[in-house]
């Protein structure tokens, strides 16, 4: 590729400045312009350091922010820092015997100047500026990334051997230098849709190095995970564990990126995920292993360090539910004057009557995700913690090629017409389950004889979001399921996939794991129709009531793992014996799962009933104290619950 000249960069820098409503040219516009040029030296150097240009551009825009709509100058002035950088660039160009500054000269000038916002952003992303400058000095601009000679083979037990082009490229670049790699297992990710592979790299002489788990997912999610690992996870792990030791691989020409979890074990043995181990060990042994190995190993630094935590349910759990609204973008001037306005704090009760076709203006929400391919933007009240991801709103139909929106941006106002409400989405997901009961009823049949009834979760979840919860807060994994738990040498426990690790409601991890075990261990034994799901519910009622299960029944055996998880959960409760906070977590986790495409129909049916049963336990206990509509004080789950526990 020929060198990019300054005169090629400036028009793009000007466009960036106008898109951001700055109307002047500064270091940030120059740097973003260089990143936006496909195949540029700047983009390639950052890519080699594990970042896509889009990710860095977003970070710079987020830190600097947009300007105001009104242009304040008739011309487009240059900032004093721009002028300083240009002087450096001209001097460097002279040294390089260039007639005029080229991209390399300008990049070096920005890096040498050191003080600009783009450079501060690079430092905040843990990039070493001196190392980047050396790369900029020595990098060959004509170097093309060729197809790397890494052969990918699959273990005979792996049935799905398909790999798309992006995944192949990421794996080859990640294991560049090895003649071949073998994919030992495919692990499905959680709700993020990422894919995980256990990969063994082989050397020329046929010997192999330790297996690693490779996670490939959407670029922004993977790069966020790497950043989160550095700042929140790295120092909170036991000594023998899975670690992120290399930079992410984030090709510029793909929407996907990959990271590699290396196992620090001291043994040459490939760890297996718990799903693979289940058939061999059985549910009961898995449950015991969770309680005796996983919980103590990670618990010491995570769950056992719980501090008192009082919160409204929506703060920790709203993000698990479908978006509050999906709207079609409408220009502000085309909005009717009497449209509803949604702003924080969100008073959901005011919006319950809104439906398809109503107009809505949203104020001061934050851009959570931008999907340029689909022209969809997701807003929330924030973009980091669970609470800040609450009240997501999807906005469709914006021309994202014309308007710049970046993750983290505060939108003063945006308007549109409602396409779908949260309630619409949940009802549609429930209809897909082909219920043998009326979804409009308050109570639904819970047992196969249909004599016992439980709460219809669709009628109850919204009230739960306002309940006050007294629980514990600690470091949580945030996506604990059977695929993220690995069994290493000597049956030692490992966790992988820390994309959602954070300080949060301690019990959440165990509710997540219960959902995973119900879907993957229990439901396959039960069957797939509604009565099979109801049989599981009958057993769960017994577990909730603290009653023992029959010993010789295969379904009851599968549920032994749930009993063990409840034993762990019991230790994570804010107050011993007060299970309401667990039922709240379970309701929300189960409701989330009813719309998971990758879950079997029977499992999704069970999830609907689990949400109903957990809601029922909550309503039962609150009725016994405060009546059907608890007052704010009575909604405190610790005072609301009266009896019943999952402990044995």
């Amino acid at each position, binding site marked *: 590729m020929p060198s990019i000249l300054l005169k090629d960069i400036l028009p793009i820098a000007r466009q960036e400045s106008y898109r951001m409503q700055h109307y002047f040219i500064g270091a940030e516009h120059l740097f973003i312009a260089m990143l936006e040029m496909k195949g540029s030296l700047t983009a390639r150097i950052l890519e080699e350091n594990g970042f896509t240009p889009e990710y860095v551009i977003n970070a710079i825009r987020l830190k*600097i922010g947009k300007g105001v709509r009104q242009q304040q100058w008739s011309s487009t002035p240059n900032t004093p820092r721009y002028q300083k950088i240009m002087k450096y660039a001209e001097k460097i160009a002279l040294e390089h015997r260039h007639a005029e500054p080229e991209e390399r000269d300008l990049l070096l000038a920005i890096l040498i100047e050191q003080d600009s916002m783009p450079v501060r952003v690079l430092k905040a992303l843990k990039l070493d500026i001196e190392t980047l400058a050396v790369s900029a000095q020595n990098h060959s601009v004509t170097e093309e990334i060729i197809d790397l000679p890494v052969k990918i083979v699959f273990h005979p037990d792996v049935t799905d051997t398909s790999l798309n082009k992006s995944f192949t490229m990421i794996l080859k670049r990640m294991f560049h230098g090895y003649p071949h790699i073998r994919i030992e297992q495919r692990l499905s990710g959680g709700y993020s849709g990422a894919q995980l592979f256990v990969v063994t790299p082989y050397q020329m002489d046929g010997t192999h190095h330790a297996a690693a788990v490779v996670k490939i997912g959407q670029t922004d999610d993977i790069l966020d995970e790497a950043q989160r690992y550095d700042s929140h996870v790295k120092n909170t792990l036991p000594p023998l564990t899975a670690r992120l030791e290399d930079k992410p691989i984030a090709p510029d020409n793909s929407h996907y990126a990959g990271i590699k979890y290396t196992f620090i074990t001291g043994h040459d043995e490939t760890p297996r995920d718990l799903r693979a181990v289940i058939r061999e060990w059985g549910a009961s042994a898995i449950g015991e292993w969770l309680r005796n190995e996983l919980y103590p190993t990670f618990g010491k630094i995570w769950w056992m360090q719980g501090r008192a935590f009082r919160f409204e349910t929506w703060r920790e759990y709203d993000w698990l539910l479908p978006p509050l609204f999906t709207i079609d973008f409408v220009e502000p001037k085309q909005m009717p004057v009497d449209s509803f306005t949604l702003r924080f704090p969100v008073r959901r009760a005011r919006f319950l009557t809104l439906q398809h076709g109503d107009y809505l203006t949203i104020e001061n929400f934050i851009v959570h995700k931008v999907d340029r391919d689909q022209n969809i933007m997701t807003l929330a009240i924030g973009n980091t913690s669970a609470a800040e991801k609450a009240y997501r709103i999807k906005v469709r139909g914006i021309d994202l090629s014309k308007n710049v929106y970046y993750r983290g941006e505060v939108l003063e106002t945006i308007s549109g017409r409602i396409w779908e409400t949260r309630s619409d989405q949940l009802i549609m997901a429930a209809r897909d389950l082909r219920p043998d009961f009326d979804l409009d009823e308050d109570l639904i049949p819970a047992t196969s004889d249909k004599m016992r009834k439980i709460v219809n979760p669709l009628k109850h979840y919204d009230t739960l979001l306002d309940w006050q919860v007294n629980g514990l807060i600690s470091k949580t994994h945030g996506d604990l399921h059977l695929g993220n738990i690995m069994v290493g040498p000597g049956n030692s426990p490992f966790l992988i996939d820390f994309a959602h690790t954070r300080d949060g409601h301690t019990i959440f991890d165990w509710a997540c794991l219960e959902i995973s075990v119900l879907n993957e261990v229990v439901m396959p034994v039960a069957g797939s129709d509604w009565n099979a799901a109801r049989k599981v519910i009958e057993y769960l009622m017994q577990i909730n009531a603290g009653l023992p299960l029959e010993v010789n029944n295969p379904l009851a055996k599968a549920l032994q793992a749930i009993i063990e998880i409840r034993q762990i959960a019991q230790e994570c409760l804010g107050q011993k014996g007060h299970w309401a906070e667990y039922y709240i977590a379970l309701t929300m986790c189960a409701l989330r799962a009813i719309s998971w495409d990758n879950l079997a129909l029977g499992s999704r049916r069970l999830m609907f009933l689990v949400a109903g049963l957990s809601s029922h336990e909550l309503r039962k206990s609150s009725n016994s104290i405060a009546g059907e509509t608890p007052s704010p004080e009575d909604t405190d789950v610790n005072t609301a619950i009266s009896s019943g526990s999952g402990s044995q």
Partner: protein
Amino acid sequence: MIDIKVGIVIMSGVEDGTTIKCSTTKGDGTVSANSWTLTIGRAEDCDLRLQTDTYISRLHAKLHYVNGQWWLEDCESRNGTFITMTNDFFKDTRVRRMIPLELGQLFRIGRTWLRLE
């Protein structure tokens, strides 16, 4: 108070890269027995006058130097004063009243980033 000098560096906006030098001996700000105060805003009498950012109030914030430590005070500005904490560069923390400020630490007045040197 002995002679104290400080540079306020503009880190974003059309004046990015400009340093405004202030000192007690030059008569900048208000000097008392053990403190020195500099004002920031759009008003004409501010020690650091930022006119190009319409998100800045007339008197937006104050910088206080007390016993060798700088403090940043928000003067009930309309659009807020923010500071970048060392543990999270991308999260801006709003200054509610007064907060200690280190040399080099980024702070934002309206939409303009600044630092002291």
